[in-house]
């Protein structure tokens, strides 16, 4: 006899179905196409492909290394040194990861141009070959992604049970305790973050595209968007997809349950390094100057030459409004699906839960241009699928595909702050699951949900790799607009638009920061 599913099964089931359609199907489609074609040829690399693989791997390795060198010590600083206004400092140090990478790349090209600040300071022109090069791309991406390493290191250091360090302090001096006990215990988290940075950088499209570095993502884009060669795009996508998936699986396995675990194991005070406060403050300020203040100042310097802000807005006002509307819709859609996936993950245990974590990380690691090509292959056809293709819904599908997995992981961690016993108590009191969620669980996750929405908004607003492929003709988001006018528009105009984009990103972030401050003050 047919029985209606419980409300929990139905809601979580719908969320899973949406995420399968948006995140899994495009990748599965690409894999199927490549395997049904001459898949073997995709994996036997010709000289051109080997060059691409070398450049891509070098970009990933270089960025992972440099970002870790910058970020991991800062994580140590935030975890173990008492600093004034630490919450604000953490927010400022983390801010670069929220800047669209291609905008930082844009600032870099202005900085290193013949009329840029570096040339003015050094008294001679920087060669274009260096400004637009693989090392430059590594530098730019490291300045964007170091917060990933910083935050992961801070979390890893804070998770270390203080008693393990105290037990060592009884027999060894502090430097030795740090070297032999603290750092080895934090190492898996730091290494996993480095792997994630590797994946993020080899998946990046905007910066290598802007700095004319030939890597897989730019070649996939060129094959599809410039040469209209879908099969070549698929062939190029396969090695990159495999590389990202393998590295993501290793990273997720290394992190294990820590991806969604939310509490420290002990309240014992950890070993502190307050005697390094001055040098730590100086290092933090130096990083902030280079990674945040310098790009903004360079863009501001360029933008001051714009005819007028009115003219800039008149040219790109539609794209700006379109972007804000799409980002609002996209972030809401992403959080609406991810909250139930996060709930299901938080309440699942054992190998199933860890398997889901790995799947989320792998799906997040799929490069944006590959997601774009997969979505087009899947939806660009006659029949009901064709109704969606060519509309703004494709952009929303792209946002869902890219950001559901990472948002779900974040919300799983938030859900774990709500003890299961709270749900059980509500159930015993006679409340159904939906009522329990609405009245008991979700209200306790308010700040986490708001944070997830703001982060999703920022990510969606700056999204370029998928958008540039799936946007309907004539429809442009602000990132697409900025990216496509760079070559043939005065730099002052482009810089002004980039600054406007940053301003829009920082409005919800500032609101969130104020909400967090109010909560901490209480």
């Amino acid at each position, binding site marked *: 006899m047919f029985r209606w599913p419980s409300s929990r099964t139905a809601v979580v089931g719908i969320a899973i179905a949406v995420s399968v359609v948006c995140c899994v199907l495009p990748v599965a489609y690409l894999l199927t196409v490549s395997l049904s074609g001459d898949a073997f040829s995709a994996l036997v690399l010709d000289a051109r492909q080997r060059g691409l693989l070398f450049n891509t791997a070098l970009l990933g390795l270089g960025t992972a290394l440099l970002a870790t060198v910058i970020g991991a010590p800062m994580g140590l600083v935030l975890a173990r040194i008492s600093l004034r206004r630490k919450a604000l400092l953490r927010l400022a140090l983390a801010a670069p990861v929220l800047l669209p990478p291609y905008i930082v790349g844009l600032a870099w090209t202005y900085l290193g141009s013949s009329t840029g600040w570096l040339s003015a300071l050094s008294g001679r022109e920087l060669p274009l070959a260096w400004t637009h090069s693989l090392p430059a791309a590594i530098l730019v991406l490291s300045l964007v992604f170091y917060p990933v390493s910083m935050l992961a290191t801070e979390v890893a250091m804070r998770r270390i049970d203080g008693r*393990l360090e105290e037990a060592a302090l009884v027999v060894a001096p502090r430097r030795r305790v740090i070297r032999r006990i603290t750092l080895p215990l934090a190492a898996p988290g730091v290494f996993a973050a480095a792997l994630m940075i590797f994946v993020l950088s080899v998946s990046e499209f905007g910066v290598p595209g802007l700095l004319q570095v030939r890597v897989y993502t730019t070649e996939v884009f060129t094959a599809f968007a410039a040469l209209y060669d879908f099969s070549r795009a698929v062939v190029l996508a396969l090695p990159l997809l495999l590389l990202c998936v393998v590295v993501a699986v290793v990273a997720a396995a290394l992190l294990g349950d820590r991806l969604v675990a939310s509490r420290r194991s002990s309240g014992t005070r950890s070993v502190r390094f307050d005697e390094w406060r001055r040098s730590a403050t100086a290092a933090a300020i130096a990083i902030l100057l280079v990674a945040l203040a310098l790009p903004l100042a360079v863009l501001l310097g360029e933008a001051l030459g714009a005819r007028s802000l009115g003219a800039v807005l008149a040219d790109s006002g539609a794209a700006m409004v379109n972007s804000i509307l799409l980002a609002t819709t996209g972030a809401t859609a992403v959080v609406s699906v991810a909250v139930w996936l996060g709930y299901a993950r938080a309440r699942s245990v054992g190998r199933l839960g860890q398997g889901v974590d790995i799947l989320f990380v792998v799906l997040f690691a799929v490069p944006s241009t590959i997601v774009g090509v997969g979505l087009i292959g899947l939806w660009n056809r006659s029949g009901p699928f064709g109704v969606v293709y060519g509309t703004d819904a494709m952009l929303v599908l792209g946002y869902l595909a890219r950001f559901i997995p990472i948002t779900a992981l974040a919300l799983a961690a938030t859900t774990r702050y709500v003890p299961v016993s709270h749900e059980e108590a509500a159930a015993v009191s006679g409340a159904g699951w939906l009522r329990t969620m609405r009245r008991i669980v979700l209200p306790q996750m308010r700040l986490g949900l708001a944070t997830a929405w703001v982060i999703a908004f920022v990510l969606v607003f700056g999204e370029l790799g998928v958008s540039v492929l799936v946007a309907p003709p004539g429809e442009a988001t602000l990132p697409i607009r900025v990216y496509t006018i760079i070559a043939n528009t005065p730099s002052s105009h482009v810089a002004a638009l980039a600054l406007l984009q940053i301003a829009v990103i920082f409005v919800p972030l500032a609101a969130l920061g104020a909400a967090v401050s109010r909560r901490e003050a209480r």
Partner: protein
Amino acid sequence: MSTPHLAIANISKRFGAHQALDGVSLEVASGEGVVIVGPSGCGKTTLLRLIAGLDVPDAGEIWMSGTQVSARHRSIVPPHARGIGFVFQDLALWPHLTVQGNLDFVLESAKTPRASRGPRVHEVLSLVRVQQLSTRYPHELSGGEQQRVSLARALVGQPRLLLLDEPLSSLDPALRATLRDELARLRRALSLTMVYVTHDMEDAAALADRVIEMRTGHIVSMTDGHKRDERT
């Protein structure tokens, strides 16, 4: 009169609004076993952490073998130079090191020559009867085995003072009784000076030369352990 091994003079410690210790004084003679009992939050663990140098006192002094090791708001001798072994309540075995590695770290930190470390580790593991577990990691051990390894780690550096913070509290009664007897045997065999914190009177009866009772940051009584044993 000979210098006490440990002398605590008028020690106080406050955490925010909570006065954890308030003018506590205590002397422990060399080879003496002192058991501190009292309810949760009475200041037992705080006292142990001050002796180890993991916290500094707000007032008072701590002396070891005639040398001042702690003063007001100041640690004069760092924890690793005080010659102590510490068994933590949750054992705090380092999860990324094997049993041998856990013990080896102590000897390496004490600059013990490499050649003599292996035999010493084996000797101490044999003493606590877990010599066959040297290549295992902490998560591969049972609760009782972890307890023994933790004790071995505290003993391997030949400490002049052994501090134990409710080391048996997480064990079932049978295992607890076994390990309590083992600890008493080791203390006699090694003539250890020991400060043992517990809220269990059976531990106190088995291990104490002297039982000190604490309440709300004060010492409220000191009893000869054997007399107490006879009373109970």
